[in-house]
């Protein structure tokens, strides 16, 4: 099982002292956080993609390429890459390039994005969000698998005799996750291709995500990729920890109360009761995270949102120390217990390469 962090890349004023980082400071902080993730033994760093303030990460592969050069083991991913408004040709090229630079430590999570004006800014229409996600991904999938592509679709200039370069490293396309907050169509898409499905699992009660993941698992089996239990599931999560849970609550409350996404609404207590957010001791985080398996089944990837709502870099790095030293080692051990032998690990470049080699007859290699 993989553990990591994902970031939205928001520039938010720290509500406790009124300071706001510059874009430069925030970008450098995101890189520092990614490097820290590797230092403390996490497996994955994923960055969001946004094209409007107050968010900074508009160019994920630039950032991930830089992080790749400064890390050894960390898998670089996204949360999410906008399959609706990006040209699938550019996604194919950017992520193949990143794969080569990072020696395969790359996967990618597709998402639709949810900011209305971003669509027209990129010449698209938000009402076509699902058809765009379906058609663009179908093209991307083909570009990574066929050397020469002829293509005609509804949304993009046709292609004749096009080869996306560089070709994926070792001929193995990056593994793809499909992220969704609400759409069964995306669970269906992930199942059809045998790709991973990532439930953000942050904003809403678990019952909502249980329905989506249940649907994905069932359809994954329907399309013949394996049993429902073998589908590749990733989950988000959101935590804030201190040694004593009262200290965690006291310190996090002003950030919660003013958070751009849910602040000025329910109390911290109600929100932690109703959603997967955990604010408390490392043991409480361990206990809550372990319940995810009961609700969603054995899964492959757990990402935590750690740097948001104006939390200072120093605090985020402390949180990552606690996560890496006290929480994740226990979670690895506990999740491994009673895990069925046929519950797969999250695909990596190595595992996909081994699978591909295994599938090709020896004389054809």
């Amino acid at each position, binding site marked *: 099982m993989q553990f990591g962090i994902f970031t939205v890349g928001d520039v938010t004023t720290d509500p406790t002292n009124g300071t706001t980082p510059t874009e430069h400071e925030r970008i450098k902080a995101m890189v520092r956080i990614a490097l820290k993730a590797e230092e403390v033994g996490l497996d994955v760093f994923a960055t969001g993609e946004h094209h409007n303030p107050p968010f900074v990460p508009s160019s994920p592969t630039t950032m991930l390429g830089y992080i790749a050069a400064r890390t050894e083991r960390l898998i670089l991913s996204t949360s999410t890459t906008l399959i609706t408004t990006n040209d699938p040709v550019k996604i194919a090229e950017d992520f193949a390039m990143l794969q080569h630079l990072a020696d395969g430590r790359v996967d990618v999570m597709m998402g639709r994005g949810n900011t209305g004006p971003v669509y027209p800014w990129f010449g698209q229409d938000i009402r076509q969000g699902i058809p765009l996600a379906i058609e663009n991904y179908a093209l991307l999938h083909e570009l990574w698998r066929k050397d020469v592509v002829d293509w005609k679709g509804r949304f993009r200039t046709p292609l004749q005799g096009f080869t996306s370069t560089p070709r994926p490293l070792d001929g193995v396309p990056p593994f793809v996750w499909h992220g969704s907050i609400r759409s069964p169509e995306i669970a269906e898409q992930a199942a059809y291709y045998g790709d991973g499905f990532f439930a953000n699992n942050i904003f809403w009660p678990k019952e909502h995500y249980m329905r989506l993941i249940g649907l994905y698992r069932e359809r994954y089996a329907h399309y013949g990729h394996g049993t429902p239990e073998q589908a590749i599931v990733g989950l988000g999560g959101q935590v804030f920890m201190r040694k004593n849970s009262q200290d965690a609550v006291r310190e996090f409350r002003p950030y919660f109360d003013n958070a751009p996404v849910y602040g000025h*609404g329910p109390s911290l207590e109600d929100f932690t009761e109703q959603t997967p957010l955990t604010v408390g001791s490392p043991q409480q985080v361990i206990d809550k995270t372990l319940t995810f398996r009961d609700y969603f089944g054995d899964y492959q990837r757990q990402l935590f949102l750690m740097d948001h709502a104006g939390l200072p870099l120093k605090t985020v790095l402390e949180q990552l120390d606690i996560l890496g030293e006290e929480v994740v080692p226990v979670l690895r051990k506990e999740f491994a217990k009673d895990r069925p032998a046929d519950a797969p690990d999250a695909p990596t470049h190595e595992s996909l390469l081994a699978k591909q080699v295994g599938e090709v007859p020896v004389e054809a290699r």
Partner: protein
Amino acid sequence: MNPLKLVVVTAGLTQPSSTRLLSDRLAEAVARQLADEGREVDVHVIELRELAVDIANNFVTGFPSPSLNAELEAVTAADALIAVTPIFTASYSGLFKSFFDVVDNTALTGKPVLIAATGGTPRHSLALEHALRPMFTYLRAVVAPTAVYAAAEDWGAADADGLSGRIARAAGELTELMAGRPATSHATEEVVPFEQQLAALRARQ
């Protein structure tokens, strides 16, 4: 036959409230007419005042609290709805509108709805026609032709053509709409198979 499910959404703010009083009289009238036809009915009243904070929180977080969710499910599962609001500033109250803003926009499709309102003066009675009726029409509900408005003075009027006559007529209309409507079915989430989604795109090229 299972009892019919009649849900009353009432947005009065005071205790006691004339909006609640009107709601209860409408519900009684509908229940009586259904009883005359030999139909049993379960009446469930939703007092929006008690959900005010939960409704506001739903706007902020994007999801309903457990208690609000239970009421949203009751509305969705209802065979018919009675919706009653005080008239504030020439329209439905903000709380009334906010509740229907967090109801799923397909929950009322085809559902019989009786609309009613209260106000201090009869001069605001057309708010029912100008504000409530279009809102429920947008939600594809089937709204009874008679909308019931009760001004302060109506509570002291004795003639049968007055408030009690309007209540009886509206209740009759709602009962008829309920009779013409099949029992509430719970549609399960349908997934369009992926090949179909792809094929739909190809067909339009």
